[in-house]
């Protein structure tokens, strides 16, 4: 104890030490090994050698460009859809929810309490060929009589949108809820129309929520492989599917690691560009 009294400055480091050490060993160091693996060549039979195998990267780009682009496309569409659904919903809860706010909020996060795989399988069920969604759409003529939704891009995008929607809705709700309602009243007192009030007051004030929400939705969506696997076919396979099968089925570790590094790099670049363009530094807070 007296040692600690004499060296007060040590206290924060002692508090940090165990947790940070754990993260260094099991998060930072593995990223280094991932990078190292991405430059190795070989197979399980011949063994793996490190020989600066940059062609793991060039192959990754040339052979899996399609899956990369598809991942970004699906993630982008899903993020926009999630925003379009979440914004009015959370606006409604934040401004009109009254005393039901907490209960309604619980409804938004409720999907998280159903195991990810099980709720995705439920979508498999809902969108299945003899399910009611398909038959309603067929009756309306929106889907041809022999058409299907399951095993199409639509199903995969629908699944991704649903599964990551709470990541969009929660930060949106927080930023909408924090808006000082008197600012909106002030705008209306000054004869701004509802549309103008929304565009000039509410929307800018909720921007941090929009930015946080889109990032939190886009990032896991771009790396996802569960929806493509359960709701799609190999024609819908995303980069996550390729990484997963190369690591766990084909044991093509070099190529798989190179693909993971590229995915991580693409996402980091997107985050930096996105936050720079929209100019927010509040993300990490």
């Amino acid at each position: 104890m007296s040692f600690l009294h004499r060296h007060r400055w040590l206290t924060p480091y002692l508090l940090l030490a165990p947790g940070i050490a754990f993260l260094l060993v099991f998060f930072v160091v593995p990223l280094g090994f991932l990078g190292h693996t991405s430059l190795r060549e070989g197979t399980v039979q011949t063994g793996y050698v490190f020989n600066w195998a940059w062609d793991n990267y060039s192959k990754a780009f040339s052979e899996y460009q399609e899956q990369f682009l598809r991942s970004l496309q699906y993630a982008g569409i899903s993020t926009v859809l999630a925003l379009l659904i979440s914004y009015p919903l959370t606006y409604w809860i934040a401004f009109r929810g009254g005393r039901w706010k907490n209960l309604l909020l619980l409804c938004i996060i409720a999907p998280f309490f159903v195991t990810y795989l099980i709720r995705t399988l439920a979508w498999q069920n809902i969108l299945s060929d003899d399910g009611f969604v398909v038959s309603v759409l067929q009756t309306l003529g929106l889907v041809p009589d022999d058409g299907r939704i399951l095993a199409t891009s639509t199903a995969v995008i629908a699944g991704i949108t649903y599964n990551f929607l709470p990541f969009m809705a929660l930060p949106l709700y927080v930023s909408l809820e924090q808006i000082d309602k008197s600012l909106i009243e002030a705008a209306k007192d000054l004869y701004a129309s509802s549309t103008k009030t929304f565009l000039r007051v509410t929307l800018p004030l909720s921007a941090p929520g929009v930015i946080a929400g889109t990032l939190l939705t886009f990032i896991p969506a771009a790396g996802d492989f569960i929806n493509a696997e359960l709701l799609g076919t190999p024609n819908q396979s995303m980069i996550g599917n390729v990484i997963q099968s190369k690591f766990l089925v084909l044991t093509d570790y070099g190529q798989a690691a190179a693909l993971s590094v590229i995915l991580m790099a693409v996402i980091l670049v997107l985050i930096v560009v996105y936050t720079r363009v929209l100019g927010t530094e509040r993300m990490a807070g």
Partner: protein
Amino acid sequence: MTAAAEPQALPRRRVSPLTRAWAFVRRHTLTVFGVLALVYLMLPIAVVIAFSFNDPAGTFNYTWEGFTTKHWTNPFGPIGLGDAVEASIKVALLATIVSVILGTLIALALVRYHFRGRGATNLLIFIPLTAPEIVLGASLLTLFLYLGTALGFWTIVIAHIMFCISFVVVTVRARLVGFDRHVEEAAMDLGANEFVTFFRITLPLIAPGILAGGLLAFSLSIDDFVITNFNAGTTITFPLYVWGAAKLGVPPEVNVIGTMIFGIAILLMLANTLLQWRRNPKGAA
């Protein structure tokens, strides 16, 4: 929902019936949209619960065949399902305990002390929250491959602690920020030493935050598929069981267990909300 809160009560002149009608339609459009969005969020949950009572003819639990409660009377009937659930609970308990201890210590250091390396620490906490799960899982796998560690129960536990720490830090830190340090000073003035003060004053006051962090860690752990998939070896957790079964047809017992997890989580959330209300009836947030 009250009409009095609407700004149209302002003494504006000549509000045409058309404008009023438009305002009415728009107000209710938002409500209708909100309700529809909630239905969309609840739909898969309802399907999961409903199909736990289904009596499927074959191995696929897709179409409604008839009501039965037989899956509820013997939820661990299918071979391996009971073991998988048991493994998941063990992993989640261990991961929760360790990540809560490590995470709370980091949160205390971050909120209470100014020290060199604060920014780096914040970054180290922030990156695992934003990195795609597949990259976290893949990089940890490469570490274990280099070390020659046999994959199994303990590598799953390590992986889960790793991704839970950041979530615990963020949750506990949020509660610590509003903490009144005068209470601690008062205890010290009255002759309590650091340890007594910590266990008698600090810990009980930040307990709700720790509890929230622990619940979050537990639910993340029990739900995790992606990172577990990379580091499980031949050990089967509940999500891994579901993944394996998805190809051959998921037994309705999986829906029973999914419903149970959902029910327990909702009950805990409601209990937590009630607890907060009783402590602080006005400032429920």
